[in-house]
């Protein structure tokens, strides 16, 4: 344990309002901590620079799952176990259920939160690709009020996001319009559990009369932050799945992604596997369409 427990302040205001007031009074001073599965790792390694922490754990107003007519709203402190055990998410948003099962293992899932995963902003984040292809929106809250951005605009750079210094992620809104979409989500890691993504790909697509009329693609560890793969999408929308479109899509994907060499894997491997995953998705799409 290389961190100094006495060098960090941690307080747990009882209400969301109290937390927001604190962030407003002293912007930039307080770092929110939810399930702690990232912050406490840094603490143990002696790398936790945040001196003042405010706990979000136990604030009921942040941990909820609300089903509305056209969307599901997930509170930022909802844990991945909450997500996995939600029948409605499993029915309506199965990619999110699947992504939740990727987080570490059982003990991590009971503490890691959707909001925490997003705000930590790792390019390898497990929930991000699914959220991106599900057109998620992020609702942010401060003492000044609430505002929303599309998730695809939330990450602005490596570990940088749209939050103002007095803002918290309050909830994630996901539209309920993917029931008929074809879905794909696959993660590639070093082992079947407790693995950080080397690369992952998520896709939602609508095919009509053999033509892709809607497609969303997102990856993990393919850029400095979780992002949609717009150019690859453009190469596919309005197209049938043929040898030529697959070739064009692979080329576009290769040009669009910027994976790196790091301690876990290589850029070349990530690139190659990314195009393989895309191909696996497209072949699956074609087979499903043909089967209808």
């Amino acid at each position, binding site marked *: 344990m290389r961190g100094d427990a006495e060098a960090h302040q941690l307080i747990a205001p009882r209400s969301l309002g109290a937390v927001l007031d604190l962030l407003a009074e002293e912007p930039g001073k307080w770092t929110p901590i939810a399930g702690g599965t990232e912050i406490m790792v840094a603490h143990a390694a002696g790398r936790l620079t945040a001196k003042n922490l405010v706990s979000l754990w136990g604030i009921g107003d942040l941990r909820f799952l609300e089903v509305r007519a056209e969307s599901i709203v997930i509170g930022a402190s909802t844990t991945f176990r909450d997500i996995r055990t939600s029948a409605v998410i499993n029915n309506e948003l199965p990619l999110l259920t699947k992504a939740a099962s990727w987080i570490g293992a059982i003990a991590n899932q009971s503490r890691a939160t959707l909001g925490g995963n997003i705000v930590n902003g790792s390019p390898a984040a497990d929930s991000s690709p699914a959220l991106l292809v599900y057109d998620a929106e992020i609702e942010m809250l401060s003492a000044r009020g609430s505002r929303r951005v599309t998730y695809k605009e939330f990450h602005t750079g490596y570990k940088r996001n749209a939050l103002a210094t007095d803002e918290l992620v309050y909830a994630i809104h996901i539209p309920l319009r993917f029931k008929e979409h074809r879905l794909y989500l696959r993660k590639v890691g070093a082992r*079947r559990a407790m693995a950080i993504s080397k690369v992952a790909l998520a896709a939602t697509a609508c095919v009509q009369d053999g033509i892709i009329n809607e497609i969303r693609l997102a990856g993990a560890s393919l850029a400095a932050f979780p992002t949609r793969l717009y150019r690859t999408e453009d190469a596919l929308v309005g197209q049938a799945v043929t040898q030529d479109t697959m070739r064009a899509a692979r080329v576009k994907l290769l040009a669009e992604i910027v994976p790196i060499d790091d301690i876990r894997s290589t850029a070349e491997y990530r690139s190659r*596997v990314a195009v393989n995953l895309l191909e*696996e998705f497209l072949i699956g799409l*074609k087979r499903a369409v043909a089967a209808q």
Partner: protein
Amino acid sequence: MSPSEKTRIVGTPVLRKEGVDKVMGRARYIDDIEHEGMWHGATVRSTIPRGVIRSVDFDERIDWSEFAIVTVADIPGKNHIQLIFADQPCLADKQVNHCDEAVVLLAHPSKQRLREAADAIHIEYDPLPPVLTIEESELQDVIVWGEDNLIKSFLLEKGNVDAVWALAAHVIEGEYRTGAQEHLYIENNGMIAEWSAESGVTVWGSLQCPFYVHKSLLAVFNLPEDKVRVIQTETGGAFGGKEDYPSTLAAHAALLAMKSGHPVKMIYDRMEDLAATTKRHPSRIRHRTALDLTGKLLAMDIEIATDGGAYATLSSTVLSRATLHSSGPYVCPSVRVRSRAWATNTVPYGAFRGFGAPQAIFAIERHVDEIAAAIGMDPVELRRSNFLHDGDTTATEQVMRDPVILDGLLDKALRESDYYARRARFAKENLHNSVKRGIGIAAFYHGSGFTGSGERYLNSLAGLDVTRDGKVRVLVANTEFGQGTNTILAQIAAETIGIDYADVVIAQPDTSIVPNSGPTVASRTSMVVGRLIERAGKQLVESLREYAELGNEFTSEEFFAACERYRAMKGEVVSLCRYEAPPNIYWDDQQYRGEAYPAFAWSVQVAQVAVDTVTYSAEVEEFWSVQEVGRVLNPVLAGGQIEGGIAQGIGYALYEKVVWQNGHMANNQMTNYIMPTAEDVPPIHVYFEEIPFQHGAFGAKGIGELPHDGPAPAILNAIRDATGVGFCSIPLLPEDIFAKLQLERSVEEPATV
């Protein structure tokens, strides 16, 4: 010792002796223990792989008077850790020779203040050019150890290989590489040390060999034997990683105890343990093999190179075992093995389950499959037609006097795994599947116990005494660290004497109480030390019959009553026995000829592997292991050893990579050093055959290391079967498979839809 000899306790699945404490969380590992007035210790380590220490600065912002500080100047005796050579310093003196080498030690009552202080010590170096690979060391451009970087070399010769090449129908070459492997015991290294002028040094800790630590401390402290005491505490996994390293940690903790005047506890955290302690020796092994037209082996020319790291530690004995396992379980009239251990400026490598055999067996068992592919022969039949049988001689001219049942093991392995049927099915299915499956085998032996005259040199003493509260107590220096030492030795004692398993306890391995029965290594404990306990038990019963009126048949009560009568007469009830070498053990250490090992355990393993051509990941889907191990003393423990060894072997093959950056382990966190989880290990099927070994306890031979020898080659042979590509280097990660499976089609070109 007949195979049908019935036993009541030996051979039965009695419960683990210390099992209740373990499942209740009551077992006390070193970090669970506090000593009154205890301080904590920390180590300041080098950040470069090689250089002269120019200065050591203590930042003014710390009040150093609160701390105990130890440098090389504080060492009362010799600045070295006595193992085989004495080249490894206890603390770096003028130069550092690897990253994470210990330079300064600190102690303080507060762990946190300690951490701040350790960060406040700045060491300046004049860097020297480091040697970081076997190839760089072999070049001998830069000399970093001895005169020539060469820690040890062996030459083993049988017949005349050079006379064969021209005549052979086939000559096949290959080069095989294995990487470093970390033990990853779940309990990190730890010690508590105390020092006083009257009693000398006492250390408690997580360790395999109390008398190794004892011997090292004598030199560091310049103390007589009775002024150093080493006590093993419950140890959470070792695998060889706590065979030699604890000597260094014990010396560090004891120096701090001496300097501070307080007990000092030093527990490594995971990052430090990964970076600074020993790992398995990396290797590069080259084979050149001659065969006749029918695939019979004519000659093997083998070149072994290992990376020993910056100091010798156990490199010479690891190299020895690699040499003696390099030609496989085959008959070959001419063999030459040239092996060398090279020094580099990396963290010194040390003992790890298998001790050179996994490296050597990876090479030969992969090479056999490459030969089979090259000459168009079935790799199973190629092996079978060259297997050793009773009466054959090995590469050291050792005659196989005990039965060798490789054919039987192979047949059973093929049958249980349905090998040929699976192989045929996969060949068909692979054509239409993006996941390619394959099945591969490995056949091997593992020499039980120390090489040659090693046991004679150890001259182990072990035995029993009887406590006043009516227990037989096993007195050995051999340690429990999960493999079942306590249980097995208690079983042997109870069986031999004729009392109940519950009547036997194990003395805590404490050098002031137990005799030196040798280290807990080399798969020797059951076979050698168990035999000493067996003899001691018989000797005790005979003494009680002679002096204390013990009858021919007796109950436990009668036995302990006789013990008390004996105690009244003689003052104590003790029975110790010293090692007696089996007759006709002839071993020439210079020529590397003769009886290399008193016994061999034999095994055939089969791996079914799936290679996903979308992700290039290889996973073991199922695994079978058939082994002949003498006598199975406890089927639950024995099965557990095989399964655990296989899991580690799977990690060695496919998951565990040490990433070096300029001589420092860059992936020194559990999140980045990958071992298989419960979701990754395949179903493992274990089958035992037993041919009792007459000199082993109740017929036992060694078992602990055998299972780690086979998985890596079996797995890579399966991958060859699955993909048609022969990979010759481990760990084999998806990135490596991808690099070689570098597709016929370009990355832009999609598969046919």
